[in-house]
């Protein structure tokens, strides 16, 4: 059957036959880099148009409908516009940090692509500490935001960055704790093992109540971590005009924008992998016929379907809820999410030890 892993294997074999092993490895790395950058750009385009359409339909509008068929090329046109726009650097800005910040944001997003399992046996790097890597690297995002806010020499930017710092660091906790409950259940940090442990059912069904709670906590925490509404205090446009990227324009702004969407994609991918079985098809117990039909759907489709469903949920939040205030944001984390996820982790551990899950 045609699949991503087969293509990857064919390419690998061909490179191994044609070049020396070290050259083959080099070309493979180049190819992987190109693939990641291509995916990066593609995701940006797709997610922007998706967000605009979702918001439009929720707001009884049509959304973009002029460029291309049904407006599908609108984000391409926007990218073109951003590319040719002048990138301004304010006079009082710290030029080096100001220009560095968007690149850090993007590099972090790219690094996070490494352990994501896109399809059956198709992964850039199946490291044995995959989950730890994701939670460690994703917290570097805050540095780029702080850097952007500080170096802009703008009071709005600075306040946005400070808010964002407080927010991301606090929400890391409950995101980490909710991820831990899956780690406890599987006993592994490796992404591929976590996916394989869900072959007979996704975790959200297998250990129903506790994993559902950690799933909800995870979704709330990652929404906050990616600075999306209702937790978009770093940008809070009615308070801080545009928050940390007030002074950015042109391509540098586009990089922030892109990094935000790619971060959303990655956290949703991690969520789908941990709770919804990654690329594992949907199986029901002993219904052999049904399970076979499900197996025919390619694993990459399963993965992207689940991920995009989670992305839709996050967009749904954004276009429904008003924004929280900074103190309420921290109250929500420290008084509600953190205790709930801690108790939940305890119960999950008990369930895992006692083997009370399916």
């Amino acid at each position, binding site marked *: 059957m045609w699949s991503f892993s087969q293509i990857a294997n064919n390419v690998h074999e061909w490179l191994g036959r044609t070049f020396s092993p070290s050259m083959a490895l080099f070309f493979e790395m180049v190819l992987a880099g190109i693939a990641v950058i291509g995916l990066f750009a593609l995701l940006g385009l797709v997610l922007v148009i998706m967000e605009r359409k979702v918001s439009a339909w929720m707001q009884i509008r049509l959304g973009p409908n002029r460029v291309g068929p049904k407006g599908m090329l609108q984000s391409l046109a926007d990218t073109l516009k951003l590319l040719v726009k002048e990138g301004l650097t304010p006079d009082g800005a710290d030029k080096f940090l100001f220009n560095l910040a968007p690149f850090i944001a993007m590099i972090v997003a790219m690094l996070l692509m490494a352990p994501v399992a896109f399809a059956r046996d198709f992964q850039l790097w199946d490291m044995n500490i995959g989950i730890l890597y994701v939670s460690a690297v994703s917290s570097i995002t805050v540095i780029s935001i702080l850097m952007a806010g500080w170096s802009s020499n703008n009071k709005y930017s600075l306040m946005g960055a400070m808010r964002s710092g407080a927010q991301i660091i606090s929400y890391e906790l409950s995101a980490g704790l909710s991820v831990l409950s899956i780690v406890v259940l599987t006993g592994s940090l490796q992404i591929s093992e976590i996916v394989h442990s869900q072959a007979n059912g996704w975790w959200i069904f297998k250990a129903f109540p506790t994993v559902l709670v950690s799933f909800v906590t995870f979704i709330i925490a990652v929404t906050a971590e990616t600075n999306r509404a209702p937790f978009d*205090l770093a940008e*809070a446009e*009615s308070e801080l005009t545009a928050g940390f990227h007030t002074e950015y324009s042109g391509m540098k702004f586009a990089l922030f924008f892109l990094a935000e969407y790619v971060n959303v994609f990655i956290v949703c991918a991690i969520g789908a992998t941990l709770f919804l079985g990654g690329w594992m098809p949907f199986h029901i117990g002993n219904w052999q016929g049904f399970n076979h039909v499900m197996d025919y759907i390619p694993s990459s489709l399963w993965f992207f379907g689940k991920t995009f469903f989670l992305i839709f949920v996050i967009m749904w939040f954004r276009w429904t809820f008003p*924004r929280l205030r900074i103190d309420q944001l921290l109250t929500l984390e420290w008084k509600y999410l953190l205790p709930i996820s801690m108790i939940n982790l305890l119960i999950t551990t008990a369930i895992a030890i006692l083997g009370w899950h399916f």
Partner: protein
Amino acid sequence: MVEEIGTTSEGDLIINVGPQHPATHGVLHLVITLNGETIKKVEPHLGYIHRSIEKMCESLTYRQFIYVTSRMDYLSAHINNHGCALCVEKGLQVEIPARAQVIRVLMDELTRIASHELWWGAMAMDLGAFTPFFHAFRERETINDIMEETCGARLTMNYMVPGGVMQDLHPMFQKRVKDFLVLYKRKIHEYDELLTGNIIFQNRMKGVGMLDPADAISYGCTGPTARGSGVRCDVRKFAPYEVYDKLDFEEVTEQGCDSFARYMVRIREMQQSVRIIEQLIDNIPSGDFQAKTKAVLKLPKGEFYQQVETARGELGIYIVSEGGTTPYRIKFRSPGFSNLSVLDHIARGSKLGDLVAMMGTLDLVIPDIDR
């Protein structure tokens, strides 16, 4: 670096909100002293859209000056025009036909609903919820269409003239208004689902911007701003004009004194306006829509003051006449100006995020403040 970005010696941050800022809905300029996220002082700087309407009116005749007032509080353009027309009529001592009175009240209440719809959407947008804005505009557009059909314009109608209204109602008016009421009643519960009941929204509004009744009166707050603090200040009740004294409607007050109370006053006021429209829409008396007036109006020497209840509060029109065809001095006591003055008082000590909630519930319209 810290000095460069503008701080006081105590380390407080001074930021300019406006004149171009997404939350000010116009060119309002607030200089805010912040300590961290906490507001220490709010200082309004006005005048970016000051057109000196009072001076302009001194050279316009009594028929002409009414249209300018649509440009003050453009969301209650009808009610502004209505107040001016009433004030001129008070000087001329003309009797307004019953039909014109009812038409005026109907238009006022439709304007009030339209204004509150816009406020609702814009305030939700200030708080970061974008969707309600478009939902509010759906109903508002219907009212605008009704206005367009009868008055010929959607925003600055100039429909009220001294002695009545400019044109008779459009034949389709009654049907369209009834259609609107059906639409409105079908959609009103969505407002509660989307915003009023939302826990995030309630947390953002409750206990924010406390304004106690004595301060509300002392600062000259009127309209829903003061009624949210339990002050009974509806001009339609204590100094009724036109047919308001014959109508059955409640003066909406809330005791909460906070932003949520002011929010609820406006939401409930829309329902009272619907109630007024329902009472009148089938009982529009026949007859003239305009009283006979002279071509050139001359007010007798003297002073005339008329209050009307706009969507934002009490609008006062004070005409000083020297007996000529133009006013000698005219003063518009605009509700927004007094409501703005309370902002500093209620904002001190709250968070920057609360400022937009407070500004939202004060319902500031900048041309109304600057005139």
